[in-house]
C-alpha cells in the first residue's frame, strides 16, 4: 500500500543519501496529491454553494430596471392588465398565500392525524404500512396529481357547484394538500420517533396508555417539530407550480370565494414566459421570482433555528 509510506520511518536510519532523498520526494508528492484533491473538492463545493448566489444575482440583475426606472409602484399594485400597461403582481402574491394556506388547512390536520395514528392512537402493527404508504406518496410526480385532478376532480367540482368552472382555488388546494402531505408527515414522524425513544418506558411505567403518552407527554415535547413541519409544508405549497398552473384557473384576481379562479406567483412566472410579451412583463416575473426567493429563504432560516435545538438533519427528508 502506498499509504504506508506516509508515516515517517521511525527507527530506521537512512542507508544512503539517495534513499533518503527518494523518500522525501515520495513524501512531497503525497502531500501535493492531498492538497490537489482537497483543492478539487473545495472547488466543487464553491461551485455548488455559489449557485445560490448566481440564482439570486440573475434574479436581481433582471429585476434591477424596476428600481432604476422607477416601476416599483406599478409592479407592487393590485392590477395585472398587460395590454393597459398595468403590471401589478400583488394579486398573484395574495393568490400564492391563499392557495398555500388553504392546502395547509387540509393537509396539516390530516398529517397530524396520520402521525398520531402511527404513534399510539391506532394499533401498532399498522404503523409500518402507513409509513410505507407515505413514502410511496413522495414518489408520485406532481404533474400526475395535476393530470388526475384535471380529469377527475375538476368535473366533480363543476358538477357540485354549477356556478364554477371547476378550475378553482378549492380544486387546487385539495390537490396541493395531497402533494405536501408526505412532507408534513415525515417531518412530524421523525420528531415523534426521537421523543418516543426517550419517554416511552418512563411514561409506560407511570401508567400512561400509548394514546395518553402521545397526547400528554410526547405532543408538548415535540412542539418544535410540529412547527417545523407546518413551516416546511407551507413553503412547499408556496413553491409548487404545476398543480396551481393546471387546476387553479390562473385568473389574476383576488379570490372572494373558494370557487374563484386564482393565480399564484409561480404559475404567473410560467405563464408570462410561455406567452412572449413586453419587457415590463418580464420585469414583473423577475420581481415575482425575487419575492419567492425571499420568502423561501426566510422559511429556511426559520427552520434552521427551529431545528438546531432538537430535530436532527435526518428530519429534512423529501
Amino acid at each position, binding site marked *: 500500500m502506498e499509504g504506508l509510506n506516509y508515516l515517517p520511518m521511525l527507527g530506521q536510519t537512512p542507508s544512503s543519501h539517495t534513499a533518503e532523498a527518494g523518500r522525501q520526494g515520495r513524501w512531497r508528492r503525497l502531500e501535493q496529491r492531498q492538497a490537489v484533491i482537497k483543492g478539487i473538492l473545495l472547488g466543487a463545493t464553491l461551485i*455548488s454553494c455559489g449557485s445560490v448566489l448566481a440564482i439570486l444575482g440573475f434574479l436581481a440583475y433582471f429585476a434591477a430596471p424596476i428600481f432604476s426606472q422607477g416601476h416599483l409602484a406599478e409592479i407592487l399594485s393590485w392590477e395585472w392588465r398587460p395590454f393597459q400597461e398595468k403590471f401589478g403582481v400583488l394579486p398573484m402574491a395574495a393568490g400564492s398565500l391563499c392557495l398555500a394556506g388553504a392546502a395547509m388547512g387540509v393537509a396539516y390536520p390530516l398529517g397530524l392525524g396520520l402521525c398520531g395514528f402511527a404513534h399510539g392512537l391506532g394499533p401498532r402493527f399498522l404503523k409500518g404500512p402507513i409509513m410505507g404508504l407515505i413514502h410511496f406518496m413522495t414518489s408520485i410526480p406532481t404533474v400526475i396529481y395535476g393530470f388526475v385532478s384535471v380529469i377527475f376532480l375538476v368535473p366533480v367540482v363543476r358538477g357540485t357547484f354549477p356556478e364554477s368552472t371547476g378550475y378553482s382555488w378549492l380544486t387546487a388546494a385539495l390537490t396541493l394538500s395531497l402533494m405536501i402531505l408526505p412532507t408534513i408527515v415525515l417531518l412530524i414522524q421523525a420528531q415523534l420517533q426521537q421523543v418516543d425513544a426517550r419517554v416511552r418506558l418512563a411514561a409506560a411505567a407511570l401508567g400512561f396508555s400509548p394514546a395518553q403518552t402521545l397526547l400528554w407527554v410526547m405532543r408538548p415535547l415535540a412542539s418544535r417539530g410540529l412547527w417545523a413541519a407546518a413551516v416546511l409544508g407551507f413553503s412547499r405549497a408556496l413553491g409548487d407550480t404545476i398543480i396551481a398552473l393546471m387546476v387553479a384557473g390562473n385568473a389574476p384576481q383576488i379570490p372572494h370565494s373558494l370557487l374563484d379562479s386564482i393565480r399564484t406567483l409561480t404559475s404567473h412566472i*410560467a405563464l408570462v414566459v410561455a406567452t412572449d410579451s413586453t419587457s415590463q412583463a418580464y420585469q414583473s416575473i423577475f420581481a415575482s421570482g425575487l419575492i419567492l426567493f425571499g420568502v423561501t*429563504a426566510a422559511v429556511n432560516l426559520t427552520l434552521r433555528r427551529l431545528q438546531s435545538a432538537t430535530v436532527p438533519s435526518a428530519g429534512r427528508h423529501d
Partner: protein
Amino acid sequence: MIKRITFLAQAFSWLALAATLGIILLFLGFLGVRGLDILSLALFFGNTPPWEAITGRLPVWHGIWPACVGTVALVLLSSLLAVPLGLASGIYLAHYASGSWKRWFSLAVELLAGIPSILMGLFGFALILFLKRTIVPQANTCLLLSAGCLALLVLPYLILMTQTALESLPDELKLAGLSLGFTPWQNIFHVLLPAAGRGILSGVILAVGRAAEDTAVILLTGVVANAGLPSGILGKYEALPFHIFYLAAEARSEAELAQGFGAALILLMLTAALFMGAYYLKSTFTKAWDHKDLLI
C-alpha cells in the same frame, strides 16, 4: 375528560387514515384502470413499426416514445453534471470543511434545497436572455440548459445524502484507516466511501427520480410538445412529464386523453421504482450501521 379527549383524538386519527387511504386508492385506481387499458406497444410507437422507431429511421407521431427518450436523455445528462459535483461537495462538507466555513456552506446548501423549482427554470431562462444580449446572440433554450437547471435542483439532495451517509459512519471506522497510516484521502476513498456506498447510492437514485418527474424547470428551459427524438444537446426535446401536462390541457380526442393516462402510468411506475429502490437502500444502510454487525 381525559378519556373523552383521548377518544376524540383516536376517532380523528382513524378518520384521517381513512380519508388519506381512500383518496390515494381512488387516485391510483382511477389511474390504473384508465392507464392499464392503453398500455401496449402502440402507446409508445403509434403506427410506426417499433424497430424503425427505436433506431430513429422513422419518426413517431402518435406515441410517447420521443418523450421517453427525451426524459432519459435529460436525466442522464443532468446526473452527469450533478453527481460528480454533489458527491465532491458532500465529501468536502463531511471531512474537510470545519468551523464557520462549514456553517456557511451548509446554509447555502439548505437555501438551495428550499428554492422552488420554477426559480431554477427562471434562472435558466434568464441565463439565455443574458447570453443573447451579450456574447451569443443565437443562444436558445435547449436540452443542455434544462439538464443544467435540473442538476441545480437535485444538487442539494446529493450533497446532503452524501454528507449524512459519511458522517453517520461509526468513529472507529473513520479512525481505523488513519491510525494505520492512510492519508486522509486514501482513508475516504478506500474505506469510508465503500462503507457509505448504499447511503450515497440511495441519494443518487433519489436525485434521478426528482429529475425525471420535475415539470416546472423544463417548462421554462426548452421542452416542446412536438420535437420528435432529441436532435442533440443544443436542440429542443420532448419529455414525459411535460407530455402529460400538455395533454391535460390540450387533448383534443379520447385517444389523446387515453395516451395521457398511459404516459402518466409509465412515469409513475418509473418514479415509484426509483424512490422505492432509494428508500430500500437507505433503510438497509441505516440498519447495517445501527447494528454494527455488517461492515459493507
